[in-house]
């Protein structure tokens, strides 16, 4: 009996170890390329081409100062923050208001509008990109950061509306009725009653839209032409073309881009994971 229990215990430990080995292998696959970039960002060019897998001989930050200058990251990060910030503000305001209206079916055609947003969620960018580009070009809006934010906001809007609507659906009806009886108007209702209840939702949507906008490639590379309008990622991409030989500098710039995103993700992980899941799994 005792022997049996011992054996059971042993298989359990063996099993658990095997699981962790597999999981760690997956972690390795995810992080190895990133780790290699970090390692090589401290090396000189010749050192990298000799052996990209070796550790740096000395810890030197010259690549980083060089990268910061050639990638124009000071400007790039400001542009990225502008682009992302404006997009988040537009999306949050519009999707909160729309989510509030659609959650209560407060207007005629709520169903049709929801259906429209559902379809808009899956529309390929190439369906509206070309006429939009030439219209923007005619209006002189190419390279205009706020104007590009509007496009990015439009692409994130459907999902944001759906998420905000779900948050409003979870607000108890009694809360709203009580406020109405106390004589609150729609504006007061939204600001004093709804906003505190749905503010976790606002953070979730903000985090999700923020990361998506920060990372976006197709729209921002098409509409933000001209070096002074480049976001951090676009500056980094232009480096790859013109700075092909200085690998160490390129690796350092990659780390400069990876660092803030990973830090932001780790701080906001809960909201991020919640946002990802609420889009796909119903709780």
């Amino acid at each position, binding site marked *: 009996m005792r022997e049996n229990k011992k054996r059971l215990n042993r298989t359990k430990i063996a099993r658990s170890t095997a*699981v962790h080995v597999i*999981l760690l292998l*997956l*972690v390795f*696959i*995810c992080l190895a*390329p*990133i780790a*290699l*970039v970090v390692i*090589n960002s401290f090396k000189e060019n010749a050192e*990298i*081409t000799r*052996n*990209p*897998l070796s550790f740096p001989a000395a810890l030197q930050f010259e690549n980083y100062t060089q990268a910061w200058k050639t990638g124009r990251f000071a400007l790039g990060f400001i542009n990225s923050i502008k682009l992302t910030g404006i997009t988040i503000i*537009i999306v949050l305001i*519009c999707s909160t*208001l*729309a989510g509030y209206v659609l959650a209560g079916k*407060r*207007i005629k055609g709520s*169903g049709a509008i*929801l259906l*429209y*947003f*559902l*379809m*808009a969620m*899956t529309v*390929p960018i*190439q*369906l509206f*990109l*070309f*006429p*939009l580009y030439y219209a923007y070009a005619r209006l002189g809006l190419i390279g205009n950061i706020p104007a590009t934010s*509007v496009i990015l*906001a*439009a*692409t994130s*809007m459907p999902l944001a509306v759906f998420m905000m609507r779900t948050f409003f659906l979870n607000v108890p009806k009694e809360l709203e009725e009580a406020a109405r009886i106390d004589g609150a108007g*729609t504006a007061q209702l939204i600001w004093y009653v709804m906003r505190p209840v749905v503010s976790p939702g606002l953070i979730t949507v903000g985090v999700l839209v923020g990361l998506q906008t920060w*990372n976006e*490639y197709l729209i921002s590379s*098409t509409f933000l032409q001209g070096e002074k309008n480049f976001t951090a990622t676009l500056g*980094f*991409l232009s480096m*790859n073309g013109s700075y092909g030989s200085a690998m160490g500098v390129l*690796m350092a710039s990659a780390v400069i*881009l*990876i660092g803030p*995103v990973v830090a932001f*993700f*780790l701080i906001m*992980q809960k909201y991020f*994971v919640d946002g*990802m899941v609420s889009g*796909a*799994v119903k709780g």
Partner: protein
Amino acid sequence: MNQKTRRKINWNYFLIAPALIISVSIILVPGIMTIVYSFTDWNGLSPNISFIGLKNFQQLMRDGIFKRAIMNNVIWTVMFITIPVCIGMFSAMLLLNRKKTRNFYQLAFLIPYVLAPSVNAMLWLNIMFSPVSGVIAALRNMGLDISSPLASMKTAIYACAGVDIWHYWSYLTVIYLAALRQTPQDQVEAAMVEGAGSWQLFRFVYLPSIMTTVKMMFIIITIGCFLAFDYIKLLTGGGPAHATEVLGTYAYSLAFGSMKVGKAAAVGLVISFFGLIASSIYTYLTRKENMI
């Protein structure tokens, strides 16, 4: 009288207006314009636009690159509805009972997912695939005769998909894990009392319980595959010799490379058509699940 009309104003119309106006002017109106342009020979600049009927579509039917692009989208879809789905499901099952370490693994897996495609692509181009400074170079130094998989017409599309899958699969882990955790615990316990093994537990208890999510993800993945653009554009730009061209990159290079906006619009319409089929199924399923 005056008061009556004032009371009739439904402020909710004003509240929904900003979201609708932005969406309609950025997506719906240009979308309709794309449909119109697909029947023209517009080059993006010239004020003379003439309607040429179905000529763009007829040309596409005879276009080898277009056929290859569709084929590549199909390859892409087949790879994406198998490889990341399996890894995602497997890792989610492994994480399900690891209460203490679950969060750590999930976060580590998600890091490639939260990085920008441009960063990920540069990372793989320069540190993995590069024959000068990448892992490929290190393997060559060790005497292996290999070259970058991106350089070969046969393997390039798989290499691109591989990088995208590397970045994407953990998203599915998170989604599946969240769904798995909603499996009623009494069902799991009942199955365990009856002596079900891990596979049987998965097959007969967990999988049926998350089937809605699995189906939904299949559709979302399929839609995403027809929209594939970022990784291909960044890794190969559609090359070598159009070997990795997908509909998304082909439409883009037609519009901005060879200035055939009419033809690009036609390709955009084809992408939308595939997307529409998938999204109709998606809408149907969502409505069936009583979301609207």
